């Protein structure tokens, strides 16, 4: 109740001196708006990076690398990795047998180009990618992807792009369930059933010179890796690198440990080799941490201007209580306790800082957005090819806004206390006599 009265008094007092109130707030406005602008830019960079990163692919996977250790500077002692030392299919099958419930292996091999004849009898080319399993990503359209079961059972299934659909289904019929005959360069051919479709990224078109006819564009189709190996009488090529996606219901840290233990055991008797497991996300987090530190550091510098603003508020509050000495005297004669007078002026000081803070926040967000828009325009201008990949997202930092509001209030209390206390301690008679 007292607070509402004090707020009303403070509003009346500020309204009576609008220009002065605004000038007093200026320091706070500049301080808060620069902090908000900097944090908005900081979070926008982070958001943009994360978006770009996510666009480039899924991030819930570990990269497993095989690296060769060698001692000293003598590079001549460094032998090329032999096939038998690399990750073999046997090794991976053992891994799947042991921990297959915790992850999905992302094993693929390219099988070159193949010819396809569409419903109109026209021939066009596709490139064949064998996959052990494939996640549904953001570009998935319909049906399903190739999974481990397709591989185990040696099924002839195929996952195709929207471009393939328009190349193949000239009659506009539903592609799912249709049979496609692929003829490899080696002459081997087989029929595959379409199980699902995905959308090509929008920048895909730019791979081809303008005016390239649709039938001349080559997209990749995905088929089960094991089916393809069997069909072409091949063995899986040994690898130095493997990608493993963790299952969403499993703890990535535990999976990492399991993978490390498994490969450490596999390479126990090959001390020259080491297996490293890393997650791309780690780099993103590292960059984000660096941006955070920089943002905070610059914000703290900007916050120094808040002190200047606070001193301005203190100054004007001292002027205000001197001007209103008589009023303070009257209030005391009417029975206002010191605490009540103190609260009245602290509330006024808080209100100045809070209004300044809110204006500062709005200006800061506006400024940040403006810079973001300019940056977006520049990126589009300078790197037109990547404009879509580097999708600049301007996002104000919510915690920074909350902290700014809190900080405004604290500034008001801190710099308002001394003048308010001075008012509270005035001698009522002297105050009443003041002219």
């Amino acid at each position, binding site marked *: 109740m007292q607070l509402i009265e004090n707020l009303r008094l403070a509003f*009346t007092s500020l309204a*009576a001196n609008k220009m002065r109130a605004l000038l007093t707030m200026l320091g706070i406005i500049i301080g808060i708006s620069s902090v908000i602008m900097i944090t908005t830019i900081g979070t926008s960079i982070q958001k943009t990076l994360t978006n770009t990163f996510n666009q480039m692919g899924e991030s819930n996977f570990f990269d497993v690398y095989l690296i060769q250790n060698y001692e000293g500077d003598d590079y001549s002692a460094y032998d090329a990795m032999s096939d038998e030392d690399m990750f073999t299919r046997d090794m991976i099958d053992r891994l799947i047998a042991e921990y297959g419930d915790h992850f999905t292996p992302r094993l693929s091999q390219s099988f070159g180009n193949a010819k396809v004849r569409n419903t109109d009898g026209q021939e066009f080319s596709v490139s064949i990618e064998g996959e052990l399993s494939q996640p549904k990503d953001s570009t998935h359209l319909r049906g399903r992807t190739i999974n481990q079961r397709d591989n185990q059972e040696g099924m002839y299934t195929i996952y195709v792009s929207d471009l393939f659909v328009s190349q193949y289904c000239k009659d506009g019929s539903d592609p799912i369930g249709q049979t496609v005959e692929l003829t490899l360069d080696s002459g081997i051919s087989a029929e595959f059933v379409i199980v699902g479709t995905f959308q090509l990224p929008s920048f895909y078109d730019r791979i081809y010179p303008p005016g390239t006819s649709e039938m001349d564009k080559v997209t990749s189709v995905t088929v089960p890796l094991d089916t393809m190996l069997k069909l072409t009488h091949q063995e899986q090529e040994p690898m130095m690198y493997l990608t493993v996606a963790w299952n969403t219901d499993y703890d990535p840290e535990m999976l990492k440990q399991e993978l490390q233990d498994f490969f450490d055991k596999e390479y126990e008797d090959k001390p020259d080799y080491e297996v490293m497991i890393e997650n791309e996300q780690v780099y993103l987090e590292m960059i984000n941490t660096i941006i955070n530190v920089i943002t905070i550091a610059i914000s703290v510098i900007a916050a120094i201007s808040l002190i200047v603003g606070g001193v301005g508020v203190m100054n004007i509050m001292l002027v205000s209580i001197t001007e209103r000495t008589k009023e303070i005297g009257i209030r005391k*004669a009417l029975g206002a306790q*010191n605490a009540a007078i103190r609260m009245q002026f602290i509330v006024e000081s808080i209100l100045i800082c809070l209004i300044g803070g809110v204006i500062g926040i709005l200006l800061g967000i506006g400024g940040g957005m403006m810079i973001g828009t300019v940056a977006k325009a520049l990126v589009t201008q300078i790197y037109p090819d990547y404009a879509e990949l580097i999708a600049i997202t301007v996002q104000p930092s919510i915690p920074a806004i909350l902290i700014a509001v809190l900080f405004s209030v604290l500034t008001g209390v801190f710099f308002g206390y001394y003048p308010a206390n001075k008012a509270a301690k005035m001698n009522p008679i002297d105050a*009443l006599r003041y002219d």
Partner: protein
Amino acid sequence: MHEPVISMRNIIKRYYIGKPNELQILTGISLDVEKGEFLAIVGQSGSGKSTLMNMIGALDRPTEGSYFLNGVDTGTLDDTELSRIRNQEIGFVFQTFNLISRTNALKNVEMPMMYAGIPRKERVKRAKELLEIVDMSDRADHQPNELSGGQKQRVAIARAMANHPSILLADEPTGALDSKTGRMIMDLFHKLHKEEGTTIVLITHSPELAQECDRIVTISDGSIISDTGVRQNAAD
């Protein structure tokens, strides 16, 4: 037990204590005021009557002597308790009205009740009643700068009465008003005295105004030189 509202014993007030220009304003005042009295304190400028008023109003503390207000020794009270005394026991009426600017008449009257912690609804109701008593209801939402001197003083009197004080303490209440308006204010004091039984202490330099009161205490050079005692009001 019978107790006077004001009981002052040998009040001394000095300024600049211990300095070469030490000044003794009150040189030993003893005064009792009974409930329901209408008392005038008269004296020339510089006689010490304003200082005495500050003492009675608990705005200032005596250097020596004791002041009992409704039996409470004010010398033992701290600043917060003195605030409460001013709020509850004293109603000030000043020569220059001292309304709070940019605050309408109703809010000015509410103010002592606000500091007393009375809920908003209740104090608005009481403030309206008070404005009714001083015949200012139609100006409740006017700012002080929209009121004439007499109107301001009536609002100030309403404000002084807000918390049912033991004493209405008026310091030259007609000093800034023309004689006609001054008359109206004096009539209002008489009305409050008769109808509400308010104890009124009127400080004035005007012997004519003093003559209207039940009792006249004259001060000169910081001490009481005459006290008529309670008598029948001359005006009756």
